[in-house]
């Protein structure tokens, strides 16, 4: 479904991705690990279409289409979801309003009718119950005054509502205490599906205790230096990233 081939990307003068190749199929869960500054978040942002990152080489196709040609909102409507590491606050904009606009933008793109307020609320309450969220969240400003855990859970709620085909979760575990981490991981697990691919971007292996990936990739200095199954994550936990970094520069 997602084919990344020798992708290079820079921000300003610094090259961050130096030739990343990755293939993700429907139903798979991939984990991308790596030290700070290795390019994990950049990869996520480039796939989502952030315009600060210039693509200087390589290709990304999604269902056979050239993804790099699409605007960020078009990618989203095509089923790509990015769970942000730092979800922004949008004061004054009701959480429900944003969600409904997002759901309807996607439905419109799919040639479906818009959901009305009643259907929307029903759906939202269902998903919130599933994620153990207080329905009051809907009436608050988007991420306004949310705790770290609430913000991340809100990202998962958006994912549940939008039912993406490809979800990239960027450091969804960062800044969470163990209870919040479990809640978020449970949410992600309920959204695992044969029709959906999930890419977890994470620094630590602890998230992978709760969400079992099919594949683990290690990114270092803008390249994937090692791929394997879940055991690779455990190995990393034990040895640190240095042994792979040496391998990359060798």
């Amino acid at each position, binding site marked *: 479904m997602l084919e990344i081939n020798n992708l290079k990307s820079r921000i300003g003068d610094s090259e961050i991705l130096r030739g990343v190749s990755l293939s993700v199929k429907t139903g798979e869960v991939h984990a991308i690990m790596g030290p700070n500054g290795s390019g994990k978040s950049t990869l996520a942002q480039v796939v989502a279409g952030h315009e600060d990152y210039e693509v200087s080489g390589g290709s990304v196709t999604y269902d056979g289409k050239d993804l790099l040609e699409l605007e960020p909102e078009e990618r989203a409507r095509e089923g790509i979801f990015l769970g942000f590491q730092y979800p922004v606050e*949008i*004061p004054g904009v009701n959480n429900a309003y944003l969600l409904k606009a997002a759901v309807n933008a996607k439905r419109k793109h799919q040639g479906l009718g818009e959901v009305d307020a009643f259907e929307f609320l029903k759906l939202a309450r269902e998903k919130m119950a599933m994620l153990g969220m207080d329905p009051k969240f809907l009436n608050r400003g988007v991420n306004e005054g949310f705790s770290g855990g609430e913000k991340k859970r809100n990202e998962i709620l958006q994912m549940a509502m*939008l039912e993406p085909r490809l979800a990239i979760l960027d450091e969804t575990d960062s800044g969470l205490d163990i209870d919040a981490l479990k809640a978020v991981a449970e949410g992600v697990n309920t959204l695992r599906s044969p029709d959906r691919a999930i890419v977890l971007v994470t620094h630590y292996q602890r998230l992978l205790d709760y969400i079992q990936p099919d594949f683990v990739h290690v990114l270092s200095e803008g390249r994937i230096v090692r791929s394997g199954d879940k055991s690779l994550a455990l190995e990393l936990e034990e040895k640190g990233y240095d042994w792979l970094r040496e391998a990359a520069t060798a």
Partner: protein
Amino acid sequence: MATESENLESLVNRRYEHGFVTDIATESLPPGLDEDVIRAISARKNEPEFMLEWRLQAYRQWLEMREPDWAHVHYPKIDYNEISYFSAPKSDEDRPKSLDEVDPKLLETYDKLGIPLHERARLAGVAVDAVFDSVSVATTFKEKLADVGVIFCSFSEAVQEHPALVRKYLGTVVPRRDNFFAALNAAVFSDGSFVYIPKGVRCPMELSTYFRINAANTGQFERTLIIADEGSHVSYLEGCTAPMRDENQLHAAVVELVALKDAEIKYSTVQNWYPGDENGVGGIYNFVTKRGDCRGANSKISWTQVETGSAITWKYPSCLLRGENSVGEFYSVAVANNMQQADTGTKMIHIGRNTSSTIVSKGISAGRAENAYRGLVRVMPQAHGARNHTQCDSLLIGKQCGAHTFPYMEIKNPTARVEHEATTSKISADQLFYCRQRGISEEDAVNMIVNGFCKEVFKELPMEFAVEAQALLNVSLEGAVG
């Protein structure tokens, strides 16, 4: 980011949609101002002697006044002798008795503005006193209002039909010599609206006036007077659009509101005058004096305004809280884009005991615009127990605009409770990307954020006006993040 900025530019620079000029021959006075011009205006309107006297005194006072220069706005000096002070559609001599008799060109103009008078007025249950240039040409729902004793007519008509009321209240809230522009208005005002709500009457519908400036080089000087007698209630809507112009047009209106004991006046404005092109050429200069007088105990005056137009806005709808327990409110959204300059705010003057006021001001700046909030809260020595809450928020779109807040407080009674909150925020690229990643277009995202920012004010507007205001904001302002 480069492409994003370009898109935003083009959105922000969308051309003014209401820019067109209706071709109707006008009978205008030649440019210039002296006592003869004032006599001519008054004669043409068949005014009684007291009106002429009032105008002439205002003119003489105006001659001795100086144009104010304290506002945070800049514009070339206005030559008051280059302005024509009266213009009326040709058909004035033979006023239409109903909409069927109205010049079809005029109706067409309203249609272009999205105001199909007959249709819309009936559907929305709104009585419309439409001001086209200087003379009212159509008034609807008069009979229905007359049934309950409400007077809603053009100012000229009020002078003819209800001279005693006009004489009793005219200039009692905004005196002739109140300020430079108010004095000019008093001398030369051409027309406007007059409303009287009798004792104990709740006006059965929203009263609405659409203003429109049309004849080239004609400053428009409306004067509105609304009197809510004891225990009455009225909601008044004012909305404006103007055609595109090459030279700046001066607009100096005066609005006076009088609320007697237990009366309530709600005055809502959506202002969409031509703001000038992206270089600021050709926009309306809007120097307005609006003031409400809570004359009786337990009276209430509420101003709600959405200001998106004009090259320059100089406007401070105010409340004189004289009556015991009287309440003043000011809810405002002021948008300034491109080269627009807005210096707007309010004055709340607490005079009576236990008076309270609320100020909620939302300023939005984009392009190279300058947006200033200027507010005065004055608590007089005798105003025991006065309360005020002021909230003043600014939203910046892009990097070249400015927002300024000038709050003044003069508290002369120790029992007063006065609160002031102010915030400044910016639509960030991160917020826009977040929304776009959720499938929402950039344009919709900006609208969503701006509407979220303004919602406290929008909820104060009557329903149909709120929808219009939201649409207007979406047109006049989309995107621009640096």
